[in-house]
C-alpha cells in the first residue's frame, strides 16, 4: 500500500479527532487512528468505544487503504514537518514508512480489523437538520451544570429534546439546573428525547461553530451521529429516564430582583476570595435597593461587598455556592439579569431577557 498525503490536510483532520484518543493505552488500538480510503477521499477515525470521531478529506484516487497508526505520534510528526509538505506513506509487513523530504519515519501499525467500531447502521434511522449556530448555543448555554461522575449516571449527560420546532436542552447535577430552548425554522416530525453522555456532548460542541450551516443528526437505536461538513461524531446515548426537570423549575417565587450582570459578577468574585475553599458559601442579603454579599472561612477571615439592585420586595437573606452563581453569570447573555426568589430554603430562578428561552435554577446552601 502506497499513497501520498498533504501535510496540512492530514494535520487538520488529525487535530479534529484527538479528543477521544487514549493517552496511556490499556488497549493499544485505542491510541491509534484508523485510515480508510475510498472514492477519492481518506477517512480518519478515532474511538474510545463510547464516542467515535471521524474526519475525511479529498485525496484524489487512492488504492483501498485499511490500517491503523499511532495517532499522537503521527500528529507530532505532521506538526514537525514543513508547511505544505507531502508525506509518502508505504505500508508493508506491519510497519508504516513515512517519507517527506529528507525525513523518514517507520511507525508500528495494528490491523484495521481489530479497530472497535460503534455499530451504527442497523435499525430505523431518524434524520434531523439543525443549524450549527442553534445547536451550538443550546449545548453551550447548559453544558456547565452537567453532573460529573454522579451515581445517578443519567445526570452525567445532556438531555436533548426536539418536539416539532422546539429544541430543548437540560443539564443538572442535582444542586442546580440549566435549561435552554430555541425555535427551529423547520419543524421536525418525530419527537426526539435522548441523553447525550458528557464526552459525546463535548465532542459535538467542538464540532459546531456559529455558522448557519446545517448539521445533520442521525439517530439509530441507542446512538447519535452528528455530521457537519467532513466531520462526524458518533456517540452512544445514555439509556435512562431523565428526571422531571419541569417539576423543579420554581413557579412560586414572588421576590423579583434585577441587577446588572457584570456588577453582580464582580461583587461575587470579590467575596468568593475569602469563602470556605471547600463549600464556597456566600450569603446574599437583599433589601432596600441593595444586595450585600458576605462570606467567611474557617480561618475567620471575612469579606463583604455591597451593590445597588432593583428590588422592592421584603428583605431576604439566602446562602449559595458562589461558584454555581458565577457559572451562570459567565454563560448567560445580556447586561441585566433577573433573580426570582421565594425564601431561604427554596430554589432561585435566574433569567435574562436577552436569552428568553433559558432558565437557570440554583438550590440555596444552608450556611
Amino acid at each position: 500500500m502506497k499513497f501520498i498525503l498533504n501535510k496540512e490536510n492530514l494535520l487538520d483532520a488529525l487535530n479534529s479527532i484527538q479528543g477521544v484518543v487514549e493517552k496511556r493505552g490499556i488497549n493499544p488500538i485505542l491510541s491509534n487512528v484508523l485510515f480508510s480510503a475510498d472514492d477519492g477521499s481518506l477517512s480518519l477515525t478515532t474511538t474510545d468505544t463510547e464516542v467515535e470521531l471521524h474526519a475525511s478529506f479529498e485525496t484524489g484516487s487512492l488504492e483501498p487503504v485499511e490500517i491503523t497508526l499511532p495517532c499522537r505520534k503521527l500528529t507530532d510528526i505532521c506538526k514537525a514537518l514543513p508547511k505544505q509538505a507531502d508525506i509518502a506513506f508505504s505500508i508493508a509487513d506491519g510497519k508504516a514508512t513515512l517519507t517527506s523530504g529528507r525525513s523518514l519515519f517507520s511507525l508500528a501499525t495494528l490491523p484495521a480489523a481489530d479497530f472497535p467500531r460503534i455499530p451504527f447502521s442497523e435499525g430505523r434511522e431518524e434524520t434531523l437538520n439543525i443549524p450549527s449556530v442553534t445547536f451550538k448555543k443550546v449545548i453551550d448555554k447548559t453544558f456547565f451544570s452537567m453532573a460529573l461522575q454522579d451515581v445517578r449516571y443519567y445526570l452525567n449527560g445532556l438531555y436533548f429534546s426536539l418536539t416539532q420546532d422546539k429544541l430543548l436542552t437540560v443539564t443538572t447535577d442535582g444542586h442546580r439546573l440549566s435549561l435552554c430552548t430555541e425555535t427551529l425554522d423547520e419543524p421536525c416530525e418525530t419527537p426526539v428525547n435522548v441523553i447525550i453522555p458528557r464526552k459525546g456532548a463535548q465532542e459535538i460542541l467542538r464540532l459546531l461553530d456559529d455558522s448557519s450551516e446545517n448539521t445533520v443528526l442521525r439517530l439509530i437505536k441507542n446512538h447519535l451521529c452528528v455530521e457537519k461538513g467532513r466531520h462526524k461524531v458518533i456517540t452512544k446515548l445514555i439509556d435512562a429516564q431523565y428526571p422531571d426537570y419541569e417539576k423543579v423549575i420554581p413557579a412560586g417565587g414572588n421576590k423579583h430582583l434585577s441587577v446588572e450582570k457584570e456588577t453582580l459578577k464582580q461583587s461575587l468574585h470579590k467575596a468568593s476570595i475569602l469563602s470556605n475553599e471547600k463549600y464556597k458559601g456566600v450569603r446574599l442579603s437583599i433589601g432596600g435597593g441593595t444586595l450585600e454579599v458576605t462570606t467567611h472561612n474557617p480561618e475567620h477571615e471575612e469579606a463583604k461587598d455591597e451593590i445597588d439592585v432593583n428590588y422592592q420586595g421584603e428583605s431576604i437573606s439566602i446562602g449559595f455556592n458562589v461558584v454555581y452563581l458565577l457559572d451562570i453569570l459567565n454563560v448567560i447573555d445580556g447586561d441585566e439579569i433577573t433573580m426570582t426568589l421565594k425564601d431561604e430554603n427554596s430554589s432561585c430562578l435566574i433569567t435574562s431577557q436577552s436569552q428568553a428561552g433559558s432558565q437557570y435554577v440554583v438550590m440555596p446552601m444552608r450556611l
Partner: protein
Amino acid sequence: MVKRKIIHIDMDAFFASVEQRDHPQYQGKPLIVGGRPDSRGVVAACSYEARTFGIHSAMPSSQAYRLCRHAIFVKPRFDAYVEASNLIREVFLSYTPYVEPLSLDEAYLDVSTCTQCQGSATLIAQEIKQTIFETTRLTASAGVSYNKFLAKIASDMDKPNGLFVIKPHEGPEFVLKLPIRKFHGIGSATEKKMNALGIYTGQDLRKWPLDDLQKHFGKSAHYFFQIAQGIDDRAVINHRERKSIGAETTFSHDIDNLDELVQQLQRLGKEVAQTLQKRFLTAQTMTVKVKYANFEQITRSYSPGSLIENNRDLQKWLPHLLQKTEAGTRPVRLLGVSISGLESARETRRPQQLNLF
C-alpha cells in the same frame, strides 16, 4: 526518642481454648467454633489440633469438614468469650493504663514507664502470661519489642504459650529475613503486588526508596518504608475512635432477585442510620459491599457531597450503588452497608447544599 517497651499479647486459639476449658471432653481433639458443616457459616476459631488438618479461621465450615471429618463443631458462646476477655483486660490494666485492644483476644501494651519487675518488659510479659493462666486457665503468647509492629511479629514467633523478645539492636536485622506476608498491614493483595515487584522479604523491601514505593502503594508507602527498617512510631492508643459504622448479612440462600436485594439493602441501611443517630454522628461516605455466590467480593462507595445524617440521606443513594454491582444478574451471598468519614453531629454546623430532587 527514648526506646519504648511494647508487649503484644495474643491468646492462643481463644474461642476454641475457652470451649476446651469448659468442656474437658473436647481437649486434645480437633475443635471448630463457628457455623455447622452443613450450613453456609465459617470457622470463627479452631483448636491447634484442628489446625494440623489445614483448617484456619474464616474458612467455610463445609470445607473444614471435608479436611477433617471427625472434627467437633460447636456454636460460638460469645458471652463466655467476652467474660474471659474482660478478665484478661483487667490483668493488663493492673500493669499499665496504655492498653490498646485489637479484638477480644489481642492487645498492645505500652510498658515503657512500668516499674514492676525492675522495669523489665520481658519479665512483665512472663508475669502477665502467668496471671492470665491463673485467672482464666487459658494460655497466651507474648511478643516483646520496642514498637507495635515488631511486638506483633514477636508474639507469633513462638505460639502457642510462647514468649519472644526482639531487642532494639536485633530489630532491623530481624526484619530483613522476614517474609513480607508476616508483616502486619500486608495482606494477600499487597503481598501479590509486592511479589510482582520482586519483593519477598524485608531485605527486598528495604532496597526500595520511598519515592518508588509511593508510586505503587500511595498512602501506605511511608509505613512500608519505615517497617522495612524496623521503625514504627505508632503509639499505643487506649481509646480508639470508631472509624466506620456498618451492618452486613449473609443470606441463608443466595439471592438473585434484585427487588429482594434492594429490600435487604434498605433494612441494613436503616440499621446503620440508627446507630449513626444514636451516636450523634454524621458521615461523609457510604459503601455497599456485595459478595457473590462464588465468594468474589466487591465494594462500591459514594460521597454525596452533603453530609449523611439520617436514614433518608442513606436510602437515597444505596440503590444507585447496588446498581453499580452485578447484583440481580449474579447470585449474591452477602450484602453489607457501611458509612465512614464520621464526625460529631454537634460540631459547628457545616454549610449544607440543598438538593433539587
